[in-house]
C-alpha cells in the first residue's frame, strides 16, 4: 500500500514514466502479435514441408506437368513410403493480389489419405472429410467465411472473374465439410478430389492442346513421404535418391524449403521485436530516472527506516518493488491496450482476408514478463544507491 502511495506521490512524473512503459509494451504486444501471426503461418509451412518431399518438373520445363507414372517410379526409391499426386489452382483467377499476411485462395486437389502422412493434420469443424466422390469440396475456415458457405451449400470454382472471357469454365461443388482453423495456408484452401483436380487441370490448358492431353494420367506435382517419423536429413537423402534414380523430375530437399521459411520468420520477428524492444528500453530508462529522483527526494525517509531497523536489503527490496510495480502497471496497461488494438483490427478485417494479429500465451508472458523485468532491472541501480546511503548523513539531509 505504501509503495502504491509512493508511486502516486508524484502523479505527473509517475504517469509519464508509466506512459513510457505503456508505449513500449503496446509496441511489443502489437508488433509481437503481428510476428506471432506471421510465424503461425510459417509454422504451418514448416510442418507441411518438413514432413514431405516436393517433386515437380525438372528445371527448364515450362509447364508444371508430370506423368502419373512417375509416382510408381518414385515409390521404388529406397526410403519412400508413400507418394501422392497434387494439383493446385487459383480459386479467384484474375483477382488483384493485395498486401496480406495470408496466402491467396487456392483450390487443392489431392488424395484424402495424404492427411494421415503429413505433420500438419487437418480436421473438420463441420461436416466430414472428402470421401473421394466427384463434386465435393472441403473449405478452409477463412475461405468458407469469405464466401459465407456452410456444409450442404454449393460453390462454383474457380470463381468467375467479373471480366471473364466467354470460354471461362467453372464447376459447381458441394461443400461437405469446413476445416478447423489452422492459422496457416489451409485456411484459404478449397480441397477437392483428384478426379476433379484433373478436370480443372484440363480446363486450365490452352484450347489448342486441351483435347490432345489426357489429364487423368497427369499430375502437377508429387508429394512424397518417408517412413513416419523420418527426420529432415533422412528426407533430404531420399530427395537426393529420387533425383538420382528418377528421370524427368526434380525433388526439392525439405531442408531448403524449411530453412527459407525459418529465415524469413526470424528476420521478420527480429525486425518487429527490435523495434518494440527499443521503445521499451527507452521506457525503462525513464524508470531509472524516476527512481533516482525518488531516492534523492526520500533520503531522509531512507535514513529513518535504517534508524528504526531496516537492513540494506530491506531498503533495496522496497525500491526494487516500487520500480517493478511501475513496470507491472505500465505492462498491464500497455498489454491491455495492445491486445484491444489487435482485437479491434482483427475484428474489422473483411471476411476472407487473413487477420493480422495473433495474441498467444507466449506473447502475453513475454510482454508482461519483460515489463516487470525491465522495471526491476531499471530499479537495481537506484535501489542500490538508496540501500547504501549512510543513515546518519541521510537523516540530516536537508
Amino acid at each position: 500500500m505504501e509503495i502504491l502511495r509512493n508511486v502516486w506521490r508524484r502523479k505527473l512524473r509517475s504517469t509519464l514514466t508509466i506512459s513510457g512503459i505503456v508505449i513500449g509494451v503496446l509496441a511489443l504486444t502489437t508488433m509481437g502479435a503481428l510476428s506471432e501471426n506471421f510465424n503461425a503461418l510459417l509454422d504451418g509451412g514448416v510442418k507441411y514441408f518438413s514432413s514431405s518431399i516436393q517433386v515437380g518438373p525438372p528445371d527448364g520445363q515450362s509447364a508444371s506437368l508430370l506423368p502419373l507414372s512417375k509416382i510408381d517410379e518414385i515409390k521404388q526409391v529406397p526410403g519412400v513410403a508413400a507418394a501422392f499426386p497434387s494439383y493446385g489452382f487459383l480459386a479467384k483467377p484474375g483477382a488483384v493480389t493485395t498486401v496480406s499476411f495470408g496466402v491467396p485462395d487456392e483450390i487443392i486437389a489431392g488424395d484424402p489419405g495424404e492427411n494421415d502422412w503429413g505433420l500438419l493434420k487437418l480436421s473438420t469443424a463441420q461436416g466430414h472429410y472428402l470421401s473421394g466422390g466427384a463434386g465435393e469440396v472441403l473449405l478452409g475456415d477463412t475461405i468458407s467465411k469469405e464466401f459465407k458457405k456452410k456444409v450442404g451449400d454449393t460453390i462454383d470454382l474457380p470463381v468467375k472473374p467479373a471480366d471473364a472471357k466467354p470460354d471461362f469454365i467453372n464447376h459447381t461443388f458441394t461443400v461437405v465439410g469446413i476445416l478447423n482453423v489452422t492459422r496457416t495456408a489451409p485456411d484459404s484452401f478449397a480441397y477437392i478430389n483428384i478426379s476433379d483436380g484433373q478436370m480443372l487441370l484440363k480446363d486450365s490448358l490452352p484450347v489448342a492442346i486441351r483435347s490432345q492431353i489426357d489429364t487423368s494420367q497427369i499430375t502437377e506435382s508429387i508429394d512424397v513421404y518417408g517412413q513416419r517419423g523420418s527426420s529432415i536429413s533422412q528426407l533430404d537423402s531420399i530427395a537426393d535418391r529420387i533425383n538420382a534414380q528418377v528421370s524427368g523430375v526434380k525433388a526439392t530437399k525439405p531442408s531448403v524449403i524449411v530453412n527459407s521459411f525459418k529465415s524469413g520468420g526470424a528476420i521478420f520477428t527480429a525486425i518487429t521485436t527490435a523495434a518494440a524492444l527499443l521503445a521499451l528500453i527507452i521506457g525503462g530508462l525513464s524508470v531509472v530516472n524516476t527512481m533516482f529522483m525518488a531516492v534523492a527526494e526520500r533520503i531522509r525517509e531512507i535514513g529513518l527506516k535504517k534508524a528504526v531497523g531496516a537492513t540494506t536489503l530491506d531498503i533495496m527490496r522496497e525500491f526494487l518493488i516500487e520500480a517493478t510495480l511501475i513496470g507491472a502497471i505500465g505492462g498491464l496497461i500497455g498489454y491491455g491496450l495492445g491486445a484491444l488494438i489487435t482485437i479491434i483490427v482483427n475484428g474489422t478485417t473483411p471476411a476472407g482476408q487473413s487477420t493480422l494479429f495473433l495474441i498467444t500465451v507466449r506473447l502475453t508472458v513475454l510482454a508482461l514478463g519483460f515489463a516487470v523485468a525491465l522495471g526491476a532491472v531499471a530499479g537495481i541501480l537506484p535501489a542500490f544507491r538508496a540501500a547504501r546511503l549512510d543513515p546518519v548523513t541521510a537523516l540530516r539531509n536537508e
Partner: protein
Amino acid sequence: MAEVRLEDLRKHYKRGSEVIRALDGVTVDIGKGEFVAVVGRSGSGKTTMLDLVGLLLRPTSGRLLIDGVDTAKLSDRDRAHMRALQVGFVFQEYNLLPTMNVLENVMLPLRYVKKPADGRAHALELLERVDLTDRIKHRPSELSGGQQQRVAIARSMINRPSLILLDEPTGAVDTETAEQLVVLLKRLNTEDQVTIIVVTHDLDVASQTSRNIRLKDGKVLADERVGAASVA
C-alpha cells in the same frame, strides 16, 4: 531496560588533511532505567555520541556495550536488528513519513522485525498514551509540531525497546509543548522502565532528567546527577 557502557569511545573524521575528533575518548556507564541528558555546545560531540549509541555509526576505537553485548562484533545486519528491537529513535525534525497516516507511522518499525506481536493493538495503546487516539487517520501534515513529536515518541516505543534515544526532541516546538513532551518522557521512563538518553540544548529539559552528561570538544566535561553529587 538497557545498560549502556562506553569505554574510551572515539569517533574521528578526516576533513582534508585535518582530523576532526568528534568524540575523543568517552567512558560512561548508563544504568538500566536511567533518564540521561547529554548536553553541550554545538560541535561538542553530543549527536555523534547518540549516533554511536544508536548503532548508526561505528566508532573509530573504543568499545560500546549494550546490555553486555560488544556492538563492535556485530555485523551491519545484526546492528540493524538490534536497532529495531532494542533502540527507539526520536529526532528533532520528527521524520514522519508524509504518505503514511499516524497509525501507519507508529507501526513502521514493526515492518523490520521478524515477529511483530500484537502490533496494531500496541500501536493504538501507545497512541492512547500519547493522547492521539483521535488522530490515527491523520497525515503528519495535518498535525501540530507537538503532535508530530508525540507520534514519533509512540513510534520509538512500538517494538518495546529497552533504550530510547532522542536528538533535540523539543528543538522544534514551543516551550509549553516542550514541557508536555518532557512530562510524557518522564512517564514513559517511569512506567516502562525504559532507559532514555536525550541530547538537548534546552537546560529546562536537562534539569528534569536524572543525570546530565556535559560534553566539550568530544570529551566528558562533567557527569552529574541532577540535584545530587557528581557521578564522575
